[in-house]
């Protein structure tokens, strides 16, 4: 279950990185609402960097057998904060819903949040063992 959850987190992170790479490289992407036109540029690139840095540090710690629990806890808190910001305020403007990759990110996001939360709890046991 732990390994599956970690796999789901990596899968989601890959989707996010791929989506934002496409957004940055392709000018034809248009935001879904007026607010998005301004906000999308401010938050997406920063969030993509959070995902990249989190992924790299987690992988490095796992490879060097260093404790990862605190890192995953911080990333989980950030993931929930970003989700709440999107869901309650930004109305999902950060995603371009028409693109299949964006749809995939939106659909897998709740699964990712549950998986990441599970990993955050489980990682404290994994670090101790």
């Amino acid at each position, binding site marked *: 279950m732990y390994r599956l959850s970690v796999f789901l987190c990596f899968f989601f992170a890959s989707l996010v990185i791929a989506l934002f790479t496409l957004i940055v490289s392709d000018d034809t992407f248009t935001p879904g609402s007026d607010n998005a036109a*301004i906000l999308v*540029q401010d938050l997406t690139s*920063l969030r993509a960097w*959070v995902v990249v840095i989190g992924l790299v540090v987690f992988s490095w710690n796992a490879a060097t057998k260093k404790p990862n629990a605190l890192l995953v*806890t*911080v990333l989980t808190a*950030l993931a929930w904060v970003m989700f709440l910001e999107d869901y*309650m*305020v930004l109305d999902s*403007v950060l995603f371009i819903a028409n693109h299949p990759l964006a749809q995939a990110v939106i659909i897998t996001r709740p699964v990712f949040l549950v998986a990441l939360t599970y990993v955050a709890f489980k990682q404290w046991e994994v670090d101790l063992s």
Partner: protein
Amino acid sequence: MSEHKLHDELRPSDEEINALLAEPYTFSFQSIRASLNKRSKLFKYTWITLMAITALYLMGWFTGLIKPFMAAGASGLEADYQLHQIRFLLAFIMLAVGAVALNYDYYMRETLIASAWVQFYFLVTGIARYARTVPDDSYQLLAAYAGNLVFILFLLLILIVEEHKLQQRP
């Protein structure tokens, strides 16, 4: 004789019996105070300052004093206003979680570290957003906004360092 002595040694003391019979450790300001008293003065006063800032923020918010200094005041966007509201709500939740962790003296350092990183995220994204929306001649507003967030982050860092010192103590 030796069995009787062993029995006496195994018998719990009056203090231990009283502790077992006492009411379970519930959430109360008494236990937060007890937890604060265990920590350094710096930790205690930093925590109180954080609480005071929260109270001042609420006073400023409801009287409308801080509205001109918000990102929404510069951009005029409803989304910025809502983002500010949700971020305060999240900060308030972090404070509540911190109070619970302090009350039970449970994973306090980890809770503070997670809160500090969320605050750092608010700081970076908030400044980036403000810098784009604020008029060119209003950089003192941006400095005041950044100063507030940096000050709260600084308080959190003090709490983390003090908690770390407490845990390192033998």
